[in-house]
Each structure stands twice: as C-alpha cells, then as structure tokens.
C-alpha cells in the first residue's frame, strides 16, 4: 500500500552514488521522484512546483552527513521542508471572555457535523461548557443528525428548525450561550460550494453576527487538486483561523493538507480519525509528512493495528477462545488485517525507535513468512480451518502440495497455531485487553519457519 520513496531514491542513487556534497544532478534526479510522490499524494500541481524549487535551492551543495546515504539526505531535507509547510499543531484559541464562538465551514460531505460533535466532546473533557448549534437548515435531517449526536453525548443543541435563516439562528445561539453560561458555541453550518455566491454570502453574515474566535475549514483528507481553490475561496470570504482534516483513518495520502496549508497559512488544529465521536486527534507534523511522502505513516499504522486488532478483533477472538472456538479462519482474518497495513518489512524496518521493540517481539517476521502461512491456510478446506484437529498425515501432504510448501512447514504452522491458542488464552483470559493480541500474533509469526 505504501510506496516507499526512500527505497526508490536509493535505487536512483545507486546508479550515481558518490558521497560528499549533493550535486545538482543528484538533487534533480531525486526531486523527480519526490515530485511524482507528491502528485500521487494529491498535493496541488502548482504547490508541488513551488515546493520542489524550494527544496532544490536548499539541497544543492549540502554535505551528505556521514550517517546517511545521499538518498536519505535528500529525503531528510524534503521531509523537513514538508514538516515546515505543515507547521506546528495548534489548539483552539479560547482566550478572552467566553462564550467563544467556533464556526465550522466546508464543502458538502466533508464531515462538519460529526466534527462539531467531536469538538464538543473534547472541549467538555477539557472543562468547557459547549453548546452546539444546528445552522445547517439545508440538508435534509442535518438538524436531527446534530440533535441525535447531542443526545448521545449529553451536550445541548441549539436549533430553531429550518425556516429561520442561519445567521439569525447563530446570533440567537450566542445570546443563549451568554445567558446560559455556556463557554463555547460550535456553529455547524451547511456544506456549500466555494463558488456558490449566495451561500458564501450567508456564511459572511453568520460571521458578522457572531464574531467567531475560530473559523475552521473542515477538509476531507481524500480531496484532490481542487483543495487549493476551495481553501482559497473560503479563506477570502470568511478569513479562516484553522483547519481540520477529516477521514484520516482511511488510506488517502492526504496531500490536500499541504495544498491547503500553502494557500491559507492557517494551522492544522485537529485530525478526524474515525466515525465515533471520540475519534479526534492532534496532528503530528512528522507523521503526516511521512504519510504524504509515501514513506508510510508507520507509527500511526502500528497504533491503528493495535487498536483494530486488540480492541475489536481480540475481544471477539478472545470470546471465541474462551469458548474454544478460535480457529484458523480467524487466524487468517488476523493475518489479512495485518497485511492491509502495508509491507510488514517496512513496518519493522522503518520505525524510528519502534524498530527495536518490534524486533524483540518478532525477530524473524517477513512478508515472505506471511505469504507462506497464508498459502498454507488457503490450501486447507473450510472444515480443516475450523477444526485443525482433523488434519491427518494425508491431509498434510495435500495441503503442502497445494501451497507449494513441505509437510514440515505445515506441521510448524499447526504447532505454532496451537501455541498461539494457548498464548491467546493466557492473554485474553487475564481480562486485560492490552497489546496482547498483537504481540501474540507477532511472536507466533516470529517463531514460524525459523
């Protein structure tokens, strides 16, 4: 899934490679790859052009550090420059006297309503008293949607139906906040196209009537080249103060973040990382930069793996285990989850700081192992997967033949699987859903085939 830019660059430099200073030729060859990586990540064409020019200027003539290859040196510069473009994460500005008005704006379907609820929850956890405002009178059931979320979180929602003009609703809400001692007012405005003049004018009116301290543009991480126009137009009309990037839990590289930052200069305040109301994160410039570059957002991927595998899966798996039902089908599911996170070798090798930990857990895991294991499991019948006990000598021979492995390897897998069942039982039986599932899987994989 993740294109590995440093590997690609390494290939390029192997052909040139002599150390010392980065020459113009070195840099140009490398930047050609960087450019493609950024365009693939949806960074805007013009933004890429400026960016490359900037990096080129910085990189030519730079002494290659002793500990780095020229490829790594270029990636390092590119990465630093990307991080600089992304800027530092910023919190909401809640200085001055409450109530503070926070206005959420953006295109249709970018995730404003969900984000409003997430922000409200975060703010309440920080000791604030949020009031959410249903100012999307346009989309069918948008008001109900916010009300439902408000009820779920037990956070009040100000709504006046869909007949009152949104600027009026918002002004009334601020008044209510003042009287009711709410400290933050979150305005959920309707999604609109940046070129819809009438709707943009409505936003200007909302802004004029409520004097918001924050005007946040909610941007879908999957947005393509058009992100620059959208961001620029919203910024022109209502002067943005920050950005929230949503749907970052998918596999979009998120180059729009660079585009939008370049055009508006306002800080990224949060990332939306899931549909649940607690899925809001502070962003890490280094991770986002790596992700956009295609070096894989490995740290996050690992964390996500732990989340996914441990909490959802391991719980279910754990229950199955307790009932003695965990079988090779389940195991294969787990493997597939693992595979989705990208090449395993990359997960293990590219983690700054993490690599040692991971290695300790799984000294020998390679993608090759994964493939072998999967091939073996795939060659079993459903019945065998569900009940490995029935796999006798002749079945083993058939499975080995089917998967292009040896009976010994099949034996290994089966005995490791039994061990893992035991291990899982210990880990989940302890009642703690820690990192056990993942570690169990890792150690099982590590043992296999070595």
């Amino acid at each position, binding site marked *: 899934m993740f294109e590995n830019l440093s590997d690609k660059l390494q290939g390029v430099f192997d052909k040139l490679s002599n150390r010392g200073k980065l020459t113009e030729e070195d840099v140009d060859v490398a930047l050609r790859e960087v450019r493609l990586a950024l365009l693939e990540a949806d960074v805007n064409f013009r933004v890429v052009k400026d960016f490359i020019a900037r990096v080129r200027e910085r990189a030519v003539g730079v002494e290659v550090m002793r500990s780095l290859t020229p490829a790594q040196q270029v990636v390092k510069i590119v990465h630093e420059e990307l991080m600089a473009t992304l800027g530092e994460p910023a919190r909401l500005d809640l200085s001055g006297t409450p109530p503070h008005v926070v206005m959420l704006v953006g295109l249709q379907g970018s995730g404003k309503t969900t984000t409003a609820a997430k922000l409200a929850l975060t703010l309440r956890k920080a000791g604030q008293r949020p009031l959410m405002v249903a100012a999307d009178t346009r989309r069918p059931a948008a008001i109900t*949607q916010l009300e439902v979320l408000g009820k779920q979180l037990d956070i009040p929602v100000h709504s006046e139906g869909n007949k009152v003009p949104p600027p009026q609703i918002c002004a009334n809400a601020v008044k209510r906040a003042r009287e009711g001692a709410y400290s933050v007012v979150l305005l959920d405005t309707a999604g609109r196209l940046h070129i819809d003049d009438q709707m943009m004018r409505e936003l200007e009116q909302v802004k004029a009537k409520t004097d918001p301290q924050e005007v946040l543009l909610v941007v879908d991480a999957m947005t393509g080249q058009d992100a620059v126009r959208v961001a620029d137009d919203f910024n022109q009309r209502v002067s943005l103060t920050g950005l929230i990037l949503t749907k970052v839990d998918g596999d979009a590289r998120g180059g729009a973040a660079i585009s939008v930052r370049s055009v508006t200069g306002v800080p990224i305040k949060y990332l939306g990382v899931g549909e649940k109301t607690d899925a809001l994160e502070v962003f890490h410039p280094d991770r986002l930069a790596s992700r956009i570059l295609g070096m894989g957002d490995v740290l996050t991927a690992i964390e996500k793996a732990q989340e996914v595998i441990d909490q959802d899966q391991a719980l279910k798996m754990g229950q199955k285990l307790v009932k003695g039902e965990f079988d090779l089908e389940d195991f294969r599911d787990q493997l597939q989850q693992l595979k989705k996170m990208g090449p395993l070798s990359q997960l293990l090798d590219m983690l700054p700081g993490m690599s040692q930990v991971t290695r300790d857990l799984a000294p020998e895991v390679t993608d090759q192992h994964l493939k072998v294991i999967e091939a073996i499991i795939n060659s079993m019948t459903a019945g065998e997967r569900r009940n490995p006990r029935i796999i006798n000598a002749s079945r083993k021979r058939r499975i080995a033949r089917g998967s292009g492995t040896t009976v010994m390897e099949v034996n290994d897998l089966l005995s490791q699987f039994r061990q893992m069942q035991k291990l899982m039982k210990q880990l989940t039986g302890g009642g703690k859903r820690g990192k056990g599932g993942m570690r169990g899987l890792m150690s099982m994989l590590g043992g296999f085939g070595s």
Partner: protein
Amino acid sequence: MFRRSKKLRDSLTKTRRSFFGQIAGLLGAGEITEETWEDLEALLVQADVGVNTTMALVERLREQVDRGKARNTQELEDLLKQELLGLLDAPPPMRVDEPRLLTLVLVVGVNGSGKTTTIAKLAKYYRQRGRKVLLAAADTFRAAAIDQLKIWGERADTPVIAHQPGADPGAVVYDAIRASQSRKADLLIVDTAGRLHTKYNLMEELRKVRGVAQKRVHQAPHETLLVLDATTGQNALSQARHFKDSVDVTGVVVAKLDGTAKGGVVFAIAHELGLPVRFVGTGETLDDLAEFDPEAFVEGLFE
C-alpha cells in the same frame, strides 16, 4: 437526453475562478513546443487525472506527434480528447433497464460522498421513466440517516422501507425486498451507510447486506453503484478497487460535479478497473442528475 447533457455542460462551464490563474496556452492553433507539453501535463494533473495516467497519455501523444498525427496545438487537443474518450470505452447497457420482476440496485461509497442524495435523484429519474420505485434505508448507523432518506423519499414521492436506528441493515434489505414484491415495485434502490474502504469489518458488513439481496432476488444486486465525490483525488482509485473487490461494484456515479473539481480520476477507474461511469450529480436538488456523457465530461476538462 440532449437537454440533460446540455445541462451538465452548463453546470460544468460555470465560472471557474482559479487561484493560480487559468491554464494558458493549450488552446488555439499554435506550434507544439515543450511549453505545450508542460501545459498539457498541468491541465491533466490538475483535473485529478493522476500522474501515472497523465504520463502515459503524454507519452502516447508525443509518439503520435512524432509520427505527424498532429502538427499544431489544435490538432493535439483533438488527439488528446480522442485518447481520453478511448479510456472511457463504451460500456454495456445498464442492467436496470432489462425487463424483470424486481431489479435491485445497491448504492455504496465512502462517508459523505453523496449516496443518499443520489438515490433520491435516481428515484425521481426512474419514476419519470415509468418505474415503480422503492427505497431501502439500510444506513442504520449514521445519526439521522434514516430521517434524511425519508425526507428525500417524500420529495421524490417514493416510499421508503426503514427500521429503527441501529437495526441490522441486512434485515432492512430483507424487508424491503418483501415489500417490493407485495407492492409490485419493480425497482428497489438500497441506501447503505458510508464507510471507508479500508475498514475490514464495515466492508464485511456490506458483503452481508449484498448477500441478503443475492439470496432473495434472482441475480441481485443487478447493479452496484459506487458514488464518488468529484472533489476526491487519487484515493478514489483505491476506493473503487476495494469496493469492487468486496461487493463487485458494476458502475460509478460522480457526485458534486457542479463544483470546480473535474473528477479526472474516473479515467483511471474506468480504464484500469473497467468500471463505467453511469451518472453524474450536478447539484443538491432532485433534478441535478444527468446520464454520463463522455464527450461533455471530456470537454469539461478544458473549460
């Protein structure tokens, strides 16, 4: 039909103010220079065609220019349009139009792409063509998703079969199929919850929903439409790939083409995955739906 594609063209030509300035130079019958190629690349990449597809196109065009197939920028533009149209191929007719007792259309896509609105538009579209349509509210997850579809159902004068929030989406589909049969509806369109294609559990859930349709109606779903947001960049390719793998998507609807985004990623989707684009969404009212017109779409890139 002509009226519709004209409408699309109109909506596509809406003034496009551009931050970095218009792409200059490509139009007009000038000499083909290195600058022409750069402009061409800029045009395609900025329309979200994607850098791989763009480079492949540019390479093919360069070859043809070398062979004397185009001598000026005007001819080059015509060649480019032909190449782009070639990527879209001629799709087979939609299976919705085949005669059968009950046709079932499953609508899928990532969060917020425009599924529910598109379904309402489709309901009106097919009702106008004499079909008896029923909608199934199988997004039981997102807050107020059911209410949203119900409101659209009223506007489109089309009944909606719904359960409570949180109910099993498969059960909704099951009920909707029975309702279609007893009410003699001949077209059932199923709204599903938005989900990111990378979420294993949610994609499995979608497969189950599809399974219910498969089991209850012969050869269903007859079409599985993926709704893509035109604003989406290269990730749309990943979306299409995953949804196709999981639930065998048969066609694409590009929503929100009334903005300034051009949706160029569908060239790669159509070409690499063989998925035809069926409709485009051009606004937020029931009438803002048009049959996909490849020529208008390609023209749209140049406007």
